[in-house]
């Protein structure tokens, strides 16, 4: 198997409901954080941000952009800086694999990531008594002091690999490997698949006219693409989190 898993997210279909954020947190055993956690110290491997056209009143337009690890293909910044080799670009799947078990918590990768897609465990993961029974057995729980991020739902990749092996097949059935966010999206805004396969719908969509990637100029070759017919979104997308177009709450 030599795949390049990636996504095309249709920003015209994203309603900002946050189902992807919740489904991601539930699938990956992300703990609910104490009341003092904020947007800066929280853990949201999938995070939906708001974009606006910068105007006010009736002229204002807003849109939503789901941000997760871009699984950069070229000169992956976090891989380059990690002193522990706790993160690696997998040759077989194209997933940038974060190993929290190897991480020593220096957070150099968080500084290096141009997309702010990495999160640090500032607190011990805690769930109310008994709630650990609802944890996903396919994902190990991290400890305090390590960085985590989206791993493209490796637990689901693992079960699809096991299912294929049990059936005597070498390749997984693409219908068996669907990350939680893709499955949760009520409007079907997230398209997921193998970018290396030209016939895969995600590959076709990635080559579409309205498709772009964030921060193309730094040439990290992210595998998460975005698609929109609205030019103001394209212009605002690169500045999300950095400029006046980041829409704050309220």
């Amino acid at each position, binding site marked *: 198997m030599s795949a390049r898993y990636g996504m095309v997210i249709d920003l015209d279909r994203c309603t900002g409901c946050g189902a992807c954020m919740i489904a991601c947190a539930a699938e990956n055993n992300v703990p609910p954080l104490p009341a003092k956690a904020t947007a800066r110290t929280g853990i949201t491997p999938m995070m939906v941000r708001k974009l606006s056209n910068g105007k006010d009143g009736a002229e204002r337009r807003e849109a939503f952009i789901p941000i997760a690890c871009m699984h950069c293909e070229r000169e992956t910044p976090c891989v380059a800086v990690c002193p522990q080799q706790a993160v690696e670009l997998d040759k077989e799947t194209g997933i940038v694999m974060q190993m929290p078990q190897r991480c020593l918590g220096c957070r150099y990768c968080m500084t290096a990531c141009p997309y702010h897609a990495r999160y640090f465990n500032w607190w011990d993961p805690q769930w109310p008594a008994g709630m650990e029974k609802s944890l996903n057995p396919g994902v190990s729980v991290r400890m305090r002091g390590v960085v985590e991020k989206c791993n493209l739902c490796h637990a689901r990749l693992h079960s699809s*690999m*096991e299912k294929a092996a049990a059936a005597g097949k070498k390749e997984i059935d693409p219908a068996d490997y669907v990350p939680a966010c893709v499955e949760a999206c009520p409007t079907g805004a997230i398209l997921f698949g193998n970018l290396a396969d030209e016939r895969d719908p995600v590959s076709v969509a990635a080559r579409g006219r309205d498709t772009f990637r964030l921060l193309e100029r730094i040439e990290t070759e992210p595998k998460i693409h975005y698609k929109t017919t609205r030019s103001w979104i394209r212009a605002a997308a690169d500045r999300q989190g950095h400029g006046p177009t980041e829409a704050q709450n309220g």
Partner: protein
Amino acid sequence: MKRHGIVFGFGLVVALLIGWVAFPRALYVQRQQPLDFFHKTHAEKSGLSQCDSCHALGSDGQYSGIPRTEVCAGCHTEKVGTSEDEALLVDNYVKQSKEPQWLVYSQEPANVWFSHAIHTRRAGLACAECHGNYGESDQQKVYEVNRISGYSRDIWGHSISRLRRAPHDGMKMTDCEGCHRRHHVETGCLGCHQ
């Protein structure tokens, strides 16, 4: 000076004795399994001669590991033999639909993902290659646990120096890596971790 050498040597010997004899004994402590189970008896008496008669792979690739009480209840709904342990099984577990809290010899940490489906079906490995001929044993293996790490002695292997050990003795990451290297199977981190 000679005396100094003797004292030094004495200390050296004491350390070597502690390190090689006392330490391995103290590090591990034995624990009792909830029931005594003999593989050979079952293989001979009930025609369950294959490992996967009880340790089965599901169609979705999930591995049963140590079989659940339901599997035992397939034959042991009532006592079929005379042993005390079987009586315990039937009374305390089968009839109450409870699972014995087996101590798993090959228990790996939660962040390890080992797929029996991939290793037995795709790679065609025999069970004995990693687990030895345990299926033919007429005694139950003693379960020893490392007091500090909490894992079974089978993971490190019985030899504290890891020298001169049986091929299947030891299931640390280096053992997995060694076998992968010999068979030229490359995997990324997510290939074995979760």
